[in-house]
């Protein structure tokens, strides 16, 4: 089946709702597993990798949650399709670079995604909109429990699940949330926050994961240590830290609007001005400006505008998504022109931001 007709349309993706989705874009829990007595993918020769793939893939496809799933080997996907999967945060950049001997199984709702022969034989992840770490953990825990009946995992009572990289050993879990933190960035509080989160043994990464820039003020927070702490304890620890980050972000937004409203109006007004009028714009600039517009929607400067309008553009203006909408191969310059056209068109029904602080939340009323 064609990947593009399988994927959830961006308009629908942008409308998915979850707890705290003003700030938490998505939650994810990933488990790393390997097959006993087979070399890890990075060291295995191609025939061995193919053997592992042919062993894991049917087991994954047989899961009740994976009915009507999209299952492909990585060599049968085009570079463009792989890039689209990266832009949707369904596979890692590392997995996108794989070809023969690696595979992917993705369910209809895009809530479960299995990467076969990435760094480990199997990397399975559960995804949820908003802050839903527990739900994501329970989903992937169930899938893993069903899979272990058919797959003989590499497991050691002392060291837990054995992984290609010693940094993932033990539970093999990575619990993460993708956060939109424009308030903390504008208030210049983001660096101390990142530092204190790091001090708690948690990692902060950019939009596309490991080693990437925080484009569009999007940050991923995840656990780093996997040995010596149970899955539920890790989930709980992350939940606590995320609750604090959410509070800090809300406070930063409220304080900025109260103390420096002109600065906020200026940023958001300029972002709208450029997006609504540019004729050439890069992906990076688009993301950073859309982030400010999203903040504007969140704090009530665009009355009547649904945040999904902005979120959909966030997906569609990424390079591979833009290329996919056009049949001919586009250069970066051509993409910049078409991106600007698309954004201008989509912002036509959106009026310019108002410059007045709306008190939409409860606490503001209590003060009266």
């Amino acid at each position, binding site marked *: 089946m064609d990947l593009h007709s399988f994927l959830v349309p961006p308009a629908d993706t942008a409308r998915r709702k979850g707890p705290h989705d003003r700030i938490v874009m998505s939650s994810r829990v990933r488990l790393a597993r390997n097959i006993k007595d087979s070399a890890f993918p990075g060291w295995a020769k191609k025939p061995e990798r193919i053997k592992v793939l042919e062993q894991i893939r049917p087991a994954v496809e047989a899961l009740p949650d994976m009915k009507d799933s999209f299952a492909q080997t990585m060599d049968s996907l085009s570079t463009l399709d792989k890039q689209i999967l990266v832009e949707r945060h369904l596979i890692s950049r590392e997995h996108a670079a794989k070809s023969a001997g690696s595979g992917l199984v993705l369910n209809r709702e895009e809530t479960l995604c299995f990467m076969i022969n990435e760094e480990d034989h199997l990397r399975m992840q559960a995804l949820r909109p908003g802050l839903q770490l527990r739900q994501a953990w329970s989903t992937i825990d169930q899938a893993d429990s069903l899979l272990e009946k058919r797959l003989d995992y590499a497991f050691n009572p002392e060291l837990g699940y054995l992984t290609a*990289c010693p940094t993932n*050993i033990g539970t093999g879990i990575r619990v993460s949330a993708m956060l939109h933190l424009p308030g903390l960035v504008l208030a210049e509080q983001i660096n101390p926050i990142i530092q204190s989160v790091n001090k708690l043994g948690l990692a902060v990464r950019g939009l596309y994961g490991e080693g990437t820039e925080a484009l569009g003020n999007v940050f991923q927070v995840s656990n780093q240590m996997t*040995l010596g702490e149970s899955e539920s304890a890790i989930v709980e620890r992350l939940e606590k830290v995320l609750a604090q980050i959410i509070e800090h972000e809300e406070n930063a937004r409220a304080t900025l609007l109260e103390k420096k409203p002109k600065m906020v109006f200026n940023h958001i007004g300029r972002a709208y001005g450029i997006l609504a009028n540019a004729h050439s714009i890069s992906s990076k600039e688009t993301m950073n400006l859309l982030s400010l517009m999203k903040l504007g929607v969140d704090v009530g400067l665009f009355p009547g505008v649904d945040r999904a309008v902005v979120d959909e553009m966030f997906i569609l203006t990424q390079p591979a998504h833009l290329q996919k909408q056009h049949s001919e191969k586009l250069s970066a310059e051509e993409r910049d022109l078409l991106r600007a056209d698309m954004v201008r068109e989509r912002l036509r029904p959106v009026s310019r931001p108002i410059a007045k602080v709306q008190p939409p939340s409860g606490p503001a009323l209590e003060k009266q």
Partner: protein
Amino acid sequence: MLCCICKEKDATVHLTQIAGEKMQKVDLCEECAKTKGVNDPTGFSLADLLLGLGASQEIEQSAGGAELKCPRCGFTQADFKKAGRLGCSECYRTFSEALGGLLKTMHKGTHHVGKIPESLRQNRDLTDRLKLLQKRLGKAIEEEDFEAAASLRDEIKQTNARLGSPATS
């Protein structure tokens, strides 16, 4: 100060990372810093660098000069230094001595806490059960309660059979 990778040239690039209560320091010469990608912030991870460095040094020490090689997959310390990843699950046994210290600096603990595959958990439960039954059997024989001993012996037999064929579910 000498570069901690090539151990030849003077170190001019100094990196520090604080994770939890642990501080890690790396000193590199210009050239090694470049080859390790330290100048490229997007492609660089201090953890990976430390991983490769620390592990290869410890492996060298524990191997006493002779190169350790995984009997299952043929992975060597040099491969680990290069890739920062291991070859197969057996490598954890092969390089266990060297990895011990590394895992300690990297993780919260050195023993797995959390999920265990069901079949192993069953096995563990059965083994525990077997020990208990054998203890009871000894006591029954001592007390010359042969009826109880006979039924305990049967149960031990069954438990043993279940232990022999795990993952029947």
